[in-house]
């Protein structure tokens, strides 16, 4: 096997997963009674290309499976067969099955053949008269399991050799005719010469080699023998040796042709031969690299974004050369031009920064697209009628944030469906339309992205939440709580929303996990519910994790950065409101809350401007459910900062989440409030009746 197919596997998997997504979306769109022919065509095309490419790469099982699927789709497409919900279900199941097969192959695991077989049987049942000619699947499987490299030495192998010598081949003392003779000695050899490059007779240089050869060699010999013949010229000539296999000649030829097509397709700018040549030299190491590459995630970036980047870099280069010229012959009269140039540089830099950040941004539809399916399956399971509305799918979001928001969103949507929406009968009884609506909405607001999950179900039962909270000791009987405080209770650990709303036992994954996940992304979640009319969960997330809005605070001679999102308020302390609690902790009374005070200079062992609280400022910050007041000397400006890791060259520093570089070039550390609280050893003394109970305390 000369061309290492595995290097294309990653592309194959990505394309196939994309194809499956198209199929799934299309299937969900299909209306059984009145199917849209374009949608069916799109589904068919996706299935067809998966079949084609999986065949090319030798994933016979996938190819076989898709073939059956395709047969059915073809009949639907030609109008021979009507659609019904059962067929749709079966098709969706097979999409799932294919997706798990692909994932298993991608991770080099064994996949569940049983499921595929079962589905194939069902398909065949439907197809009945139109039985697909099933090739004996066992023999095919053997073919898959046998790695192509293990072609036995004794078997006759057909080699396709393309030999394009360098023009200077003859000058370097190599004799192509000798090599061809050597090849001919190895076995049956058909040689064709290509004289396309031969110039007019007048301009022929007798010492140049214009001719190239394509050789078909059928021989018992090993690959290494052929390589040896070309050993001296392989560095400056194009030599492509492909095996057209002794065992399955036809299929293999097909494979190689397709492969070459594919290669030229995916790499139109590059000539295909140099790529192939590299492969000849180090097929093994390449294969290793490929397995590594399979683990790395990639990102698809639209050409538009790349083009704008290229333009910006071009502008930057122009500005740079302009400034360079100015600098080499500088005199004081050119100050105005220098300033102009610097302004331009600043402009270029900012735009470039924005464009680069935009590369990491993907439309949220990547996450949203899984919900129609989820809602469809779940609503069937629960016997509810649900319509899902998606808006703002094109809203862009950082890739890392997107990957980590998926699970919390799924949880919220499941909750909305399971506990929020009523059964059709209850809905009709409540005077609502039979079909419930779940709406997912994403939009930008300031530097944040907001995701809203709205259902028009029964809403939260506040009285029930209250009772549950009292029963579990989170609040006291006589406590008066505002609506928001009651709603906030459902994010407490140990609260099962199922218990709360439906008295059906929950799955045990609580809303506290959802909140924690969102907080890890430095976001927040709120719920707003009206009994009988439904609930809205609002998630607020930063657009990116690489940049943070920070408040600069000064402690002693050091400047630290506090994430702006965590700051509730800043105030000058009124000494009357500060109490000293036994055990060494100061507490600030702020309106109705008691907030522990953390002295940053104490925690960080710094010398402050003044140790007297009266001369300092307090910054009240909120993490999770607890608030603390940080003592700082001075508040400085607010600014966006680029987060840099301390761990790259040092290690994790307690109380610090990272570092950044300020405008004057100095390093400033970004404070991690959660860590700080731990560091200060302050565990919030949750006052029952107030909504403050820290997770840690609850766990204890």
């Amino acid at each position, binding site marked *: 096997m000369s061309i290492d197919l595995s290097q294309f596997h990653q592309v194959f998997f990505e394309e196939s997963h994309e194809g499956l997504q198209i199929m799934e979306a299309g299937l969900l769109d299909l209306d059984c009674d009145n199917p849209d022919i374009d949608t069916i065509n799109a589904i068919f095309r996706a299935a067809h290309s998966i079949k084609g490419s999986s065949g090319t790469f030798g994933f016979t099982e996938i190819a076989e499976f898709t073939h059956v699927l395709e047969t059915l789709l073809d009949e639907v497409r030609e109008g021979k067969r009507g659609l019904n919900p059962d067929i749709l279900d079966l098709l969706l199941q097979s999409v799932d099955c294919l997706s798990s097969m692909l994932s298993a192959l991608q991770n080099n695991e064994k996949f569940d053949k049983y499921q595929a077989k079962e589905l194939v049987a069902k398909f065949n049942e439907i197809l009945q008269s139109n039985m697909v000619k099933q090739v004996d699947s066992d023999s095919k499987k053997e073919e898959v399991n046998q790695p192509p490299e293990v072609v036995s030495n004794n078997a006759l192998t057909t080699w396709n050799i393309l030999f394009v010598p360098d023009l200077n081949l003859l000058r370097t003392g190599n004799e192509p005719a000798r090599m061809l003779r050597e090849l001919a000695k190895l076995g049956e050899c058909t040689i064709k010469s290509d004289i396309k490059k031969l110039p007019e007779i007048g301009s022929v240089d007798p010492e140049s080699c214009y001719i190239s050869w394509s050789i078909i060699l059928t021989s018992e010999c090993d690959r290494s023998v052929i390589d040896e013949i070309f050993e001296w010229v392989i560095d400056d000539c194009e030599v492509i040796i492909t095996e057209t296999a002794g065992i399955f000649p036809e299929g293999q030829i097909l494979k190689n042709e397709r492969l070459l097509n594919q290669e030229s397709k995916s790499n139109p700018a590059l000539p295909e031969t140099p790529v192939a040549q590299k492969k000849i030299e180090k097929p093994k190491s390449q294969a290793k690299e490929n397995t590594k590459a399979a683990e790395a995630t990639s990102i698809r970036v639209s050409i538009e974004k790349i083009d704008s980047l290229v333009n910006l870099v071009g502008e930057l280069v122009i500005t740079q050369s302009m400034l360079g010229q100015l600098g080499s012959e500088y005199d004081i009269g050119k100050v105005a031009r220098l300033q102009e140039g610097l302004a331009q540089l600043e402009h270029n830099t900012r735009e470039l920064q924005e464009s680069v950040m935009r590369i990491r941004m993907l439309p949220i539809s990547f996450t949203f697209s899984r919900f129609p399916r989820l809602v469809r399956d779940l609503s069937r399971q629960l016997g509810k009628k649900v319509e899902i509305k998606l808006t703002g799918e094109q809203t862009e979001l950082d890739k890392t944030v997107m990957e980590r928001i998926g699970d919390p969103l799924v949880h919220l949507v499941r909750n909305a469906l399971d506990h929020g929406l009523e059964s059709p009968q209850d809905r009709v009884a409540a005077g609502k339309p039979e079909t419930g609506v779940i709406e997912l909405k994403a939009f930008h607001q300031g530097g944040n992205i907001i995701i809203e999950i709205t259902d028009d179900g029964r809403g939260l039962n506040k009285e029930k939440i209250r009772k549950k909270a009292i029963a579990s000791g989170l609040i006291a009987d006589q406590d008066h709580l505002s609506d928001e405080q009651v709603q906030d209770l459902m994010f407490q650990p140990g609260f099962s929303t199922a218990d709360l709303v439906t008295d059906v036992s929950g799955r045990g994954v609580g809303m506290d996990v959802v909140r924690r996940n969102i907080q890890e992304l430095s976001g927040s979640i709120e719920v707003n519910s009206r009994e009988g009319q439904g609930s809205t969960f609002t998630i607020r997330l930063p657009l990116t994790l690489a940049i943070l809005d920070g408040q600069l605070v000064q402690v002693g001679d050091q400047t630290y950065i506090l994430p702006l999102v965590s700051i509730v308020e800043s105030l000058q302390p009124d000494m009357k409101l500060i109490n000293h609690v036994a055990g060494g902790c100061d507490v600030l009374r702020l309106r109705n809350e008691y907030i522990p005070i953390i002295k940053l200079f104490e925690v*960080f062992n710094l010398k402050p401007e003044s140790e007297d609280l009266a001369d300092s400022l307090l910054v009240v910050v909120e993490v999770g459910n607890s608030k603390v007041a940080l003592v700082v000397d001075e508040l400085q400006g607010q600014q966006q900062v680029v987060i840099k890791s301390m761990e790259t*060259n040092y290690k994790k*520093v307690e*109380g*610090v989440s990272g*570092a950044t570089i300020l405008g004057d070039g100095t*390093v400033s*550390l970004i404070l991690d409030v959660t860590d700080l609280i731990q560091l200060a050893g302050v565990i919030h003394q949750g006052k029952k009746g107030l909504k403050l109970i820290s997770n840690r305390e609850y766990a204890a």
Partner: protein
Amino acid sequence: MQNLKDRSDPTDVEILGHDSDAMDQYLTFIMSDEEYGVDILSVQEIRGWESVTLIPNAPPHIKGVINLRGTIVPIIDLRQRFGLAKVEYGPLTVVIVLKVATRKGARVMGIVVDAVSDVYSLSSQDMKSAPDLGDHVNTSYIRGLVNVSNKMVILLDINELLGTDTIPEVSLSTLQEIKESTVNN
């Protein structure tokens, strides 16, 4: 430093300028009259001392972090690391930025030293391994000792010295003992 420039003793190892494959080049620096050497390939650059941003609750020899063209680089005071007397940083105080190989990959760190001295080409034959001083003294961070112009140069293995998170105990007495034992030999 003066006697280094007087390179008359022919028994000394070759000084910079004689390229040989077997030769390794070392950059040496001075700390309280002792000369130390590090493999020159690990040296990224040499900078003057500039003010650092403190790392809260870090050990005293970690002076803080600086911005090296966008990278956050920790600065380690080698004097304090070796338990030598603290000196005020002046305009001649030098930071050597090193690339250190650790288990977690390459890290960039800076060390504060009194002054940079010279570059020597040394072959491994010239190098004498650090004397074994028993279990209580850790000498793993010393690659070897070498004699240049009748002066001992201590070659440090910076990967051992700075590469681990748990920095091994190094003290003045260790160095003193090493010195004494080599003199006795």
